[in-house]
């Protein structure tokens, strides 16, 4: 058992898979010689050599296209897109090519590839370097989407993603890179599509992913001090989605709150709210409430950014008010 930062966990997760399987290769901008702009990949070039760890030009379409072409012909590429915002410049590769090709070819083409990217706000980077694109990604059929919230989850889910026969988008909350967590020794391998219940309580269910998970947990702790019991669910994976755990949690509390870093409209929270409103309607004892970033681009100034993203106090205030 070691204490690792999330950032170091990324390196360890990639190294674990590259050691295991010669077909795993890493491609991205500044990932090789420089070890990544977030320092998530240092030492990999040294260990695995320039054949397997490759610096790419600023050509995101070519990076993902290369990953796709390699995946369909025998490799298992991990492609880094530096910031998830940049998925917009290669969205065709993600949404039209990688996600759809297996279906359109009726299963002839398999695409075992991973796209890793730094996601979300908190670093005062402004509107084009802070987005939470889980709401874009979940809307695309054919793409698996995971959002690990701890170093151990990152390693286990990244390994599962690399070994998965389908394309997986791994969203790394960049605000969590410096955060430490316990990581067991040895090989870690997790399962895609399993949510985790982090605490249980009878009054409300809070569902979160990524950087919002620790905030939801802290909010739940504070509310517990006031006698309000919350179940907190970390979805961990948006596709596949662990609907069973979600419905069970809501059944136990009758109230659903989402905590979402993404701008408000059409987020994963809207999706799970809709699932619950359809499939667990009888269990609901009150409105479903989404706690989100407003439907705005993220501003750069620290005070404004802090106002925008759901905070512990906004979570507790919203939940307590809704519970009346």
């Amino acid at each position, binding site marked *: 058992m070691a204490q690792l930062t999330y950032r170091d966990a990324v390196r360890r997760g990639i190294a674990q898979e590259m050691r295991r399987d010669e077909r795993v290769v890493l491609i991205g901008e500044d990932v090789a010689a420089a070890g990544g702009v977030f320092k998530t990949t240092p030492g990999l070039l040294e260990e695995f050599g320039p054949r397997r760890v490759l610096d790419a030009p600023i050509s*995101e379409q070519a990076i993902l296209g290369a990953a796709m072409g390699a995946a369909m*012909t025998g490799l298992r590429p991990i492609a880094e897109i530096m910031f998830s915002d940049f998925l917009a410049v290669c969205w065709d590769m993600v949404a039209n090519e990688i996600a759809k090709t297996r279906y*359109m*070819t009726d*299963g002839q083409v398999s695409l075992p590839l991973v796209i890793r990217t730094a996601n979300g706000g908190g670093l005062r980077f402004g509107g084009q370097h802070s987005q939470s694109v889980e709401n874009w990604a979940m809307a695309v059929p054919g793409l698996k989407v995971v959002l690990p919230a701890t170093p151990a989850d990152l390693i286990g889910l990244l390994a599962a993603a690399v070994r998965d026969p389908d394309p997986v988008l791994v969203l790394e909350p960049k605000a969590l890179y410096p955060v430490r967590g316990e990581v067991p020794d040895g090989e870690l391998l997790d399962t895609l599509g399993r949510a985790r219940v982090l605490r249980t309580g009878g009054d409300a269910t809070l569902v979160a992913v990524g950087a919002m998970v620790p905030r939801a947990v802290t909010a739940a702790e504070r509310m517990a001090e006031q006698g309000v019991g919350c179940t907190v669910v970390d979805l961990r994976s948006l596709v596949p989605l662990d609907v069973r755990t979600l419905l069970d949690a809501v059944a136990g509390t009758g109230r659903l709150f989402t905590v979402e870093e993404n701008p408000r409209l059409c987020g994963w929270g809207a999706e799970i709210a809709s699932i619950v409103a359809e499939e667990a309607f009888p269990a609901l004892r009150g409105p479903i409430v989404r706690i989100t970033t407003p439907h705005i681009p993220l501003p750069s100034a620290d005070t404004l950014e802090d106002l925008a993203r759901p905070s512990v106090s906004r979570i507790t205030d919203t939940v307590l008010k809704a519970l009346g």
Partner: protein
Amino acid sequence: MNDNPCPDVQLELYRRQVEVRVFEKRAYDLFLRNLVKGTSHLSLGQEAIAAGFGTAMRRDDYTFATYRGHAHTLVRGAPMAAVMAELLGRDSGLMGGKGGSMHLTSVEHGVMGSYAIVGAHLPIAVGAAWSAQYRGSGQAAVCFFGDGATNIGAFHEALNLAAVWRLPVVFVCENNLYMEYTPIASVTAVPRPAADRAAGYGLDPLVVDGNDVEAVYGVARAALERARTGGGPSLVEALTYRHGGHSRADPGKYRPAREVEEWLARDPVSGYRERLLRRGIPAKILDDIDTEVRAAVDAATDAAEAAPPPAPERLLSQVWTDGGSSWRN
């Protein structure tokens, strides 16, 4: 010294062109009979390019095609009946009816897909070539696209990356003078949309008569050889012309009559037939090929027409490798 390909190859070049020609005409007939339901983009007039490359490629090389990909798929040996059935949206279609005319794929025959977003497959072909290089397999990837595709960003990114990594990929621009209905010259800064960009990626400009199947074959062999021996990518611009409109909906009226006439006179299929006859190949041999091909296309058509529509279960299948489409646990 005789520069001509050996006789077997000549007949193969002829046969593949005829196959494409007869198949595409049949596809057009079936469209007129409202049996091809979606859109389709034919290679009538452009047969020599697919035929020349298809003949030069190794069995395990990779083809990446566009929505105008019937020809490129057939020349790799994909079964005609399955291709036809795919156009008709039948269960026996190459992709069970899911892809349709624009997405023909036959991995078994090295056809790694037909892509309907202009330019998208260039970077993907780069990836297949990267993988071939990584695995040391000696395979090459051949990526076909149109003149119009040279103005989209993905073209630029793919060419640069292929050149930097010296990848075994051959980019083949089929310059048929038009994007959909717009003349390529009116939207491109240089006269040769592909060849005039080659230097920007450290490559030589290669222009070939795309209606001369032997010329194409020769360029293809050289480019594939270069690819396999570590020489890196090539960018070939093949000059050609489509006999019909852009797609099934288009009568192609925007083209000057004289231009159409000139190019019809340079028909790659009948032109090659005449050349072979001049070289002394007996007409009977060519006629036999024609007859065989027609019979094959007839058989493929009958089989496709007789095939049932896709089983409804297909709808929710093969989003994932587990065979299904479920997004939930």
